[in-house]
């Protein structure tokens, strides 16, 4: 790639060289000069020049110009408010006009202290007001959702939020209404702003018009600490800061990793933190007591009991992992259990390192020319921020082809493997284009796929190796599936055999405890030891329950779907000891030396897994390790067969919605985002059964049924219905749908 042409621009008398095409605001920054802005936000698309805050004087142009709408040209001479009286006057005027109707809310406004309007008024604005008329008023604040409050009086109509809703997240729910001085921001009717990315408008808003209801009146910027960490609720691993006050997490904000999340967060990662203080959080070990249920026991007794269970079970132990443990946590567990000969572990899904040969940062998706997305589960449910990258790619002109039950190219459920075979076959039109493109990306989102091995085989067949703009992503269901799997394997080189009978089942984490397969396994096991955060999960069928911690309370590392190793930091002290603390003690009782410090454990793992990367270098904005050479050639496997529908019966596609899981269930403000009791039908299937949108229907399979509301999805393939996992109960793969 050739170096961009440099141009010389003079800003307030300082000459600076920037690549041709750099925006003027960035050019100013390069020269160390501030050009103040409100509406300018490059992530939202081309600049609009609406707020008029960035007015500057350009030599040769008679009128003041909106700096944000201009790009650097060679020889441009720019004067900002610092050196141009006219520009200073213009910026002062903009602020005066904004303040004309802006309420004097600073003392009660959450934005105070981190408010661009305050800061810019201080720097460029008038010191007092000349406005003597009553300011326009609105009822305020109004909750536009349980998580976001809107204060229309404070709104300066910079349109950042509406542009986000329209363009970036594409939900189109937050809009401007009316015209001129009557303009206001609103949702449709009184419906809440219900979309997975709604919370980003809180960070985008340059004033206190859009604020977090969770954070309302909770803290002031000078009494908080922002602890840098990474969200571990999905396999993207967005970089976040946890704002803490007096030892409690008060909010989550983005820390902007330009390659991973670009400053966006999904609402789950943003608002679910209050699960830390859920009323049913387990803070002490609980032991089953016959006839009395469960009783809390002190830690010594708990560890004694754990030791007893482990000794009695010998090597007949199976470990059920969640895939949300840290790498160090999983490793610690593995060193203990595998040290005892218990090598069998189950994970929610297969993992593979095959895609390491085609590694790219998520941001590469935006730069792509052609993106092909396969798989049965929408990316927006599994890895929401990846969906934003796909949308950004479309906006940038990329062609994004989705092959799935609701895709631009329809494919039956379970057909992703077949699609891979088809694309690799010579003469396939899309396959040819993938071979020819300089920047092509493949994405597999959904079950199957062997942890990415299938996709790697396809990438290999398409000649992606050696083409640095081409890469592939496999989207797992668990946040750290691969990290956990590799940490488990690294603990020992021995193989084991699946124990029969299972004398002890170790359940690690809430996701494992909620998994019906694990539950079924627990029925067969003689005893169960569970590590969970909440009462409702394993308490009841485990024999010993040890309190678990949350990702916000752990120090350690995780590996995201890019293969990037990222650092979690403890943001608050957990109410019970960290897992590594008691694991280390427990291991000691068996003569196994296990350090309780993540740094030490990482150092043990690093030579084998991470090329010797030192723990301290994982870094605030972790880098992606370079691609590895393609391993042994992976073969494209023929697909597993799925029973097709038979005209009357339809294929049921279950999916795990984004807003599900133990943490989300315990956040009252997020309940409105939980999936409605709905079944999604194609327009054809609905019409044939005379089902209209919103009709109550019965969905039936052998022996079970569910009553749900119908939703018509015009994009869904005929013959397929979709139901969120939590509403699908025990329904089988083939179902009948009848109008009630």
């Amino acid at each position, binding site marked *: 790639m050739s170096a961009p042409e440099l141009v010389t621009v003079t800003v307030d008398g300082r000459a600076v060289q920037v690549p041709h095409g750099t925006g003027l605001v960035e050019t100013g920054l390069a020269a160390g000069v501030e050009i103040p802005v409100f509406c300018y936000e490059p992530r939202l698309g081309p600049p609009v020049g609406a707020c008029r805050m960035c007015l500057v004087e350009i030599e040769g142009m008679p009128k003041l110009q909106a700096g944000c709408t201009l790009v650097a040209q060679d020889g441009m001479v720019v004067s900002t408010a610092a050196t141009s009286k006219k520009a200073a006057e213009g910026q002062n005027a903009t602020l005066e006009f904004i303040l004309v109707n802006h309420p004097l809310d600073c003392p009660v406004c959450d934005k105070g202290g981190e408010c661009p309007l305050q800061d810019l008024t201080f720097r460029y604005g008038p010191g007092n007001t000349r406005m003597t008329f009553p300011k326009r008023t609105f009822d305020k604040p109004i909750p536009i959702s349980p998580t976001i409050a809107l204060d229309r009086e404070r709104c300066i109509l910079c349109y950042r939020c509406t542009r986000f809703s*329209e363009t970036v997240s594409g939900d189109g729910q937050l809009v401007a209404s009316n015209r001129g001085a009557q303009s206001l921001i609103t949702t*449709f009717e009184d419906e809440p702003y219900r979309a997975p990315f709604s919370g980003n408008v809180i960070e985008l808003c340059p004033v206190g018009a859009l604020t977090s209801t969770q954070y309302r009146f909770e803290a002031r910027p000078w009494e908080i600490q922002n602890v840098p960490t990474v969200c571990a609720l999905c396999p993207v691993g967005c970089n976040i800061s946890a704002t803490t006050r007096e030892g409690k997490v008060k909010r989550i904000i983005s820390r902007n990793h330009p390659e991973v999340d670009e400053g966006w967060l999904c609402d789950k990662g943003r608002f679910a933190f209050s699960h830390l203080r859920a009323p049913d959080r387990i803070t002490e070990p609980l032991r089953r007591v016959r006839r009395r249920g469960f009783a809390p026991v002190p830690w010594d007794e708990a560890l004694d009991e754990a030791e007893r269970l482990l000794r009695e079970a010998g090597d007949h132990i199976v470990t059920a992992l969640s895939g949300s443990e840290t790498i160090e946590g999983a490793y610690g567990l593995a060193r203990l259990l595998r040290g005892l000969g218990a090598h069998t572990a189950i994970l929610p899904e297969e993992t593979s390192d095959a895609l390491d040969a085609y590694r790219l940062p998520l941001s590469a998706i935006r730069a792509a020319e052609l993106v092909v997305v396969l798989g049965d589960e929408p990316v927006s449910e599994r890895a929401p921020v990846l969906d934003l990258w796909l949308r950004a790619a479309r906006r940038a002109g990329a062609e994004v082809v989705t092959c799935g039950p609701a895709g631009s190219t329809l494919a039956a459920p379970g057909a992703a493997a077949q699609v891979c075979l088809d694309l690799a076959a010579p003469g396939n039109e899309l396959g040819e284009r993938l071979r020819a493109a300089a920047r092509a990306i493949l994405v597999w989102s959904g079950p199957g796929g062997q942890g990415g091995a299938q996709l790697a085989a396809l990438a290999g067949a398409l000649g992606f190796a050696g083409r640095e703009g081409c890469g592939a992503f496999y989207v797992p269901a668990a946040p750290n599936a691969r990290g956990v799997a590799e940490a488990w394997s690294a603990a020992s080189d021995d193989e084991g055999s699946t124990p029969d009978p299972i004398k002890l089942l170790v359940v690690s984490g809430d996701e494992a405890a909620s998994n019906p397969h694990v539950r079924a396994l627990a029925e067969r096991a003689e005893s169960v030891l569970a590590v969970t955060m909440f009462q409702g999960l394993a308490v009841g069928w485990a024999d010993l329950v040890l309190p678990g911690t949350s990702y916000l309370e752990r120090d350690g590392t995780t590996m995201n779907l890019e293969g990037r190793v990222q650092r979690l930091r403890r943001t608050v002290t957990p109410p019970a000891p960290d897992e590594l603390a008691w694991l280390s003690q427990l291991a000691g009782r068996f003569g196994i030396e296990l350090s309780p410090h993540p740094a030490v454990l990482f150092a043990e793992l690093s030579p084998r897994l991470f090329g010797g990367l030192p723990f301290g270098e994982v870094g605030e904005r972790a880098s992606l390790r370079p691609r590895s050479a393609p391993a042994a050639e992976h073969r494209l496997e023929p697909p597993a067969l799925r029973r097709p529908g038979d005209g009357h019966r339809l294929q049921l596609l279950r999916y795990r919605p984004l807003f599900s899981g133990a943490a989300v269930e315990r956040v009252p403000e997020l309940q409105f985002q939980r999936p409605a009791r709905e079944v999604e039908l194609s327009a054809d299937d609905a019409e044939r059964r005379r089902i209209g949108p919103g009709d109550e229907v019965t969905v039936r399979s052998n022996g079970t049924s569910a009553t749900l509301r119908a939703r018509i999805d*015009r994009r869904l393939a005929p013959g397929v219905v979709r139901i969120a996992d939590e509403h699908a109960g025990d329904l089988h793969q083939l179902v009948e749908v009848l109008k009630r």
Partner: protein
Amino acid sequence: MQRSLYEEIRAVAVQYPDERSAVLPALRLAQERYGWLPPAAFREVADALDVTPAYCQSVASFYDMFHLVPVGRRLVEVCTNICCGLEGAQGVLEALESELGVRVGETSDDGEFTLRAVECLGGCGSPTIVAIDNRYREGVRADDVPALVTELRGG
């Protein structure tokens, strides 16, 4: 057989290189059916053009000719911009208020007439312009109003 609103909108949408352009004609078609634009209208238009109801409402609320509250069966609009204003528009407006029995900006109790003051209608050479359901009466003077109203009432 009368086409559904969905079908009518689809027929218009295909005339444009980008279907979103059909939002304005689609809203107009919906308004003709409903008499105004209730929330249901926005849902229908949104469905037909694959946009959100919020988007449709946002667009409609920008333009003066879309009514987001119920209006009378007949819309009577008087231009009160400067040219008509200089030649007696206020008198025409007040005469209409009196004859129609309705205050400006409101709808008569029988739901028959909505009376509004509007900006320049483009008939400045023959003031005052009164638009009845978007058809212009030119050169209207205050004393023309009684006869005009009689005519509107079907007399």
